[in-house]
């Protein structure tokens, strides 16, 4: 896929995470993923349709997921990835993807997004696209989030 398509998603993290209470947002490594890859344990996947088709998945460890939800809930301790924290992570992935969709729209690429689905497991094998996907790491104080992009124009 075209690596330039990753930019709106990275921008969305920098736009939104400070608003959600995060102090630290950094871009980490970029790598090309095998079509089928073993992912981190908590994955939020959002589908895209119209001029850009594919999926974007936000993958993180259980530990990062709990810390991420805790930051979103104003520092409330999160011991278990319960319904409320799952909902927080799902909502964040929805906001980030919607923000990226608006950036794409302003570039003349019209995109619709589906509601997020959370997949939680251990050693989960994931294929989000028929094409090779890109993984961009976003580093926050909650830990690393792998943004897995499998998009086609």
């Amino acid at each position: 896929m075209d690596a330039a398509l990753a930019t709106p998603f990275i921008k969305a993290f920098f736009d939104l995470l400070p608003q959600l209470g995060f102090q630290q947002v950094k871009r980490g490594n970029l790598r090309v993923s095998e079509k089928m890859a073993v992912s981190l344990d908590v994955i939020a996947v959002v589908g895209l349709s119209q001029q850009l088709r594919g999926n974007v998945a936000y993958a993180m460890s259980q530990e990062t997921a709990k810390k991420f939800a805790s930051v979103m809930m104003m520092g409330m301790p999160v011991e278990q990835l319960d319904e409320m924290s799952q909902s927080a992570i799902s909502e964040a992935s929805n906001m980030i993807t919607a923000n990226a969709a608006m950036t794409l729209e302003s570039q003349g690429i019209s995109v619709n997004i589906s509601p997020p689905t959370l997949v939680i497991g251990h050693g989960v094998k994931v294929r989000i696209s028929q094409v090779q996907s890109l993984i961009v790491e976003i580093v926050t104080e909650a830990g690393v989030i792998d943004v897995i992009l499998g998009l086609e124009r």
Partner: protein
Amino acid sequence: MSANYLEHFSASMLQNLQEMAGMEAAASQPTGQETAFASQGFSVIIGITGKRPGRIILDTTQATACALSNTINGEECDEEFVLDTMAELTNIVSGNGITTVNNANPGMGLMLTPPSIFIGNELTIVSPKLNAEVVTVTTPLGPINLSIGFEGGK
């Protein structure tokens, strides 16, 4: 939107299993599904965009996915082949179902996103804020669950 939209999906599933795999299968009545449910180990997820966003999930065991792929293709299990076959089956069933829903509800403009596939033991799948219903399709190779959920009511 009519409450029995799920029947269009399950009818398409039964027809495709018959045509592609020569297999007789039966679908249960739709039942409401919890926000979080345990996967059988092999899940294909297709997003729905438009006026009523949602998602479709085909969920089965890795063994059933493999056996079904073998029956359809007449070849031994190759992981890539199993993934392609199950993704395509979900695509076809979702496409048929969504077309029927769109035709019955002018202006809904529902579109599908490409499939994503998740494989693993002890997977939990969560769809916050969606109202989902599920049918179990019983096939000679094992049960396949077809779940459809939309935002904001059924």
